[in-house]
């Protein structure tokens, strides 16, 4: 059919446009709230933009974005393979705690040895956290969403417990662990930071994020492993019929997803935090990862960009109070963006209603007839 495409067709068929539109709508809703509060929209958004576009500002954004990207990859990977890793939060927590334990107890090891060791420990911890849930699912059919939420809390209290162990706990009065060894830190050298005028927490974790993005893309698109995992994600019955071991695939997917989330925890700790506080509430990196995966359409490169965007909102948002706007405004914007992305159905329905008003046709009919024409 050579019919001219309507705007709605365009939006619903093009994920990228749909997401841009959702983002614009998010800012629009944010603007409405600003206007209601009697604040200048231009000033607030101007501040948001100017705070992330300077070199120093942008280096902050990148630092913020590192864990979001990696956890976003974790969730996106799980989406692609048919499990919903809502447990990235817990995997993030155990990952960062594992990295902290290694970074504190094995602090005398040289940097080239200690840093990979911390990464490995974090990935292993995250993977184990994911696999336990996968095992409960494949062995006894326990819904992974429920057990993951529980495991998020188990990770939370486990982390607080470990932080209280004397060998780990801070020597001072702080309710936190000791600082990790400087050999476990991924910070750029003070010298370099000062010379370039970057954020004091600038670290090369972003390189790990880039590598992980490429790696996840490669696994999903180029390997037989990715083929298997996707087949199980799209249709586990056909995958099983085709000879793929479904349970093993689910466990593998959760292990990889968990390892990524755990790595996110290590990158956050080794680049920014350098110690883990006793939590009073969940920090929400895992949930941010879900948002980032959604905005990034579960595409690894999309997730990378979405992670930077999310980092920019978080960092820029923290500067909003300088112009008298509440920092919670960012949550309103993010919430709205996710809302519009999640209800992509609305665009579909609008399109359908419009079509129905013109000619009440069952959507499948013309396509089916088209087939006939070619016979």
């Amino acid at each position: 059919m050579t019919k001219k495409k309507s705007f709605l067709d365009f939006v619903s068929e093009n994920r990228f446009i749909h997401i841009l539109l959702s983002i614009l709508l998010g800012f629009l809703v944010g603007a409405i709230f600003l206007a209601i509060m009697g604040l200048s929209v231009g000033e607030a958004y101007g501040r948001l933009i100017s705070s992330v576009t300077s070199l120093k500002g942008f280096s902050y954004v990148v630092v913020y974005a590192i864990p979001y990207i990696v956890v976003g990859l974790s969730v996106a990977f799980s989406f692609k393979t048919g499990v919903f890793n809502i447990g990235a939060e817990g995997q993030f927590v155990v990952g960062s705690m594992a990295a902290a334990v290694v970074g504190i107890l094995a602090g005398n090891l040289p940097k080239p040895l200690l840093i990979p060791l911390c990464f490995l420990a974090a990935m292993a911890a995250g993977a184990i956290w994911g696999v336990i849930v996968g095992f409960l699912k494949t062995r006894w059919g326990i819904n992974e969403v429920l057990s993951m939420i529980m495991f998020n809390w188990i990770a939370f209290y486990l982390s607080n417990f470990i932080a209280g162990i004397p060998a780990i706990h801070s020597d001072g009065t702080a309710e936190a662990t000791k600082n990790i060894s400087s050999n476990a830190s991924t910070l750029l050298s003070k010298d370099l930071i000062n010379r370039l005028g970057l954020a004091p927490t600038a670290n090369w974790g972003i390189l790990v994020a880039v590598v992980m993005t490429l790696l996840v893309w490669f696994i999903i698109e180029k390997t037989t492993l990715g083929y298997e995992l996707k087949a199980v994600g799209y249709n586990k019955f056909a995958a099983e019929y085709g000879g793929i071991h479904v349970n093993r695939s689910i466990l593998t997917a959760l292990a990889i997803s968990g390892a990524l989330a755990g790595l996110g925890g290590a990158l956050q700790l080794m680049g920014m935090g350098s110690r883990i506080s006793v939590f009073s509430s969940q920090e929400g990196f895992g949930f941010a990862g879900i948002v980032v995966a959604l905005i990034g359409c579960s595409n690894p490169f999309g997730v990378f960009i979405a992670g930077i965007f999310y980092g920019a909102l978080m960092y820029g948002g923290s500067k909003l109070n300088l112009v008298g706007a509440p920092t919670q405004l960012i949550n309103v914007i993010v919430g709205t963006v996710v809302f519009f992305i999640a209800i992509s159905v609305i665009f579909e329905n609008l399109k359908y209603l419009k079509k129905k008003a013109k000619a009440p046709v069952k959507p499948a009919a013309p396509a089916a007839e088209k087939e006939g024409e070619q016979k």
Partner: protein
Amino acid sequence: MSKQYVDMSTPVIEMRNIVKKFGDFVANDGINLTVHKGEIHAILGENGAGKSTLMNQLYGLLKPTSGDILVNGKKIEMNNPRDAIDAGIGMVHQHFMLVQPFTVTENIVLGTEPTKGVKLDMATARKNVVEISERYGLSIDPDAKIEDISVGMQQRVEILKALYRGADILILDEPTSSLTPQEIVELIDIMHNLVKDGKSIIIITHKLKEIKESADFCTIIRMGKYIDTVDVDEVDENDLASMMVGRKVTFVVDKPAQEPGEVVLDVKDLHCKDYRGVEIVKGLNLQVRRGEIVGIAGIDGNGQTELVEVITGLRKGVSGQVLVNGVDVFNKSPAFGFDHGVSSIPADRQKHGLVLDFSIEDNLILQNYGEEPFSQKAILKRDPIFSHASDSIEKYDIRPRNSEKRPAGTLSGGNQQKVIIAREVQNDKDLLIAVNPTRGLDVGAIEYVHKYIVDQRNKGKAVLLVSFELDEIMSLSDIIDVIFDGQIVSSIPGSEANENDLGLMMAGGKQA
């Protein structure tokens, strides 16, 4: 049909020169249709010929681009189904539109519930429903929930729903596509009861046998064009098929005589349970040799589904042996069976056969993505995968062409089936299991599928065919095994089979 109820002087439906365009595409190109009081009129055409488009215009779901629709001699403009219902037209769609947790009565009266003041009057509703169901011999349980009754019963509820709304003209869209042979016989009885009472029925179908058995007249549509309207008594199935497809269709499959070779599949004393935990395969024995097609005939629910699931490794059995070339694949994984020579065309093509979101090229390598040339050292090789798909699309006539990268879900049912057949036949295993391989396909596509199955046999492969279509079993099988109550009760050469004897054996009536 004897046309004893047809009143040729009273046309109830006249569609004149109907043209329907979607953009540049002409779905209906000058179609004429006349249906009389008391007539059963079949609309015949291949998948996508424009049958449903025509009926959707009669039911007010689509508006014709040009042409007139007359109901009872009066020109009527139909803007929506409401107008059609008011004009006495009812339609039963191929996919039923029932509320699953509601009772039969609640579904039938939905939207036109009798009330007492502001309260629903379900007692009256139930009485009315029982009344019309008795009048037309459509027995149903008015208090059963839809989710608990069979597909055939659900169809009756749909018909009653239309009658309850005062329909005199019923449109049935592919009414037999999901029915068992028994239910089809019952449906034809019901249709006869309805025309006896002065109703008119239009059935959309591509099943020739049912047209012969039920219809008075038949209008044939091919690629959107009106071909002819014929008196069903004056044509045979071959005539109908040629008019529908536009070429000569052979129903007789060309099958050279050949001596079967050694045993490939040997099922010994197999026991297994169904999903409820009830034993359904009860000590079944079965053999398939090289170069022969063994057809399993049986009424649904006698264990054939579970038998295939056990052989293919999808279901765990209780006891027994499933030897494939001497290797026991009983209670092993589907991958193990595949590695030892089992390939299969599954009954549910969308659930087991294809990953609908995967492209056609990816679906074609579902079992051998891990082998060369499709991958090397766990890395997929896109070029060989693509050229494999191009070859298969060409060789197996998968339409549209150049669809290597298209998701399988965008193909029509017949072409989805061709993708599965292309994959399974090219796997070239010693045993091919085909379950209802032509369900829902039109005669043109059926011809292709049958040809490929027979080709495998001719190449010396063992083929196990399970089908609810007796005609298919009879025309393809070298040996017909009748399954009843979880056992093979008789085994006869395909050439000696006739429908009546098979029917009796399938019902457990006689053992050969």
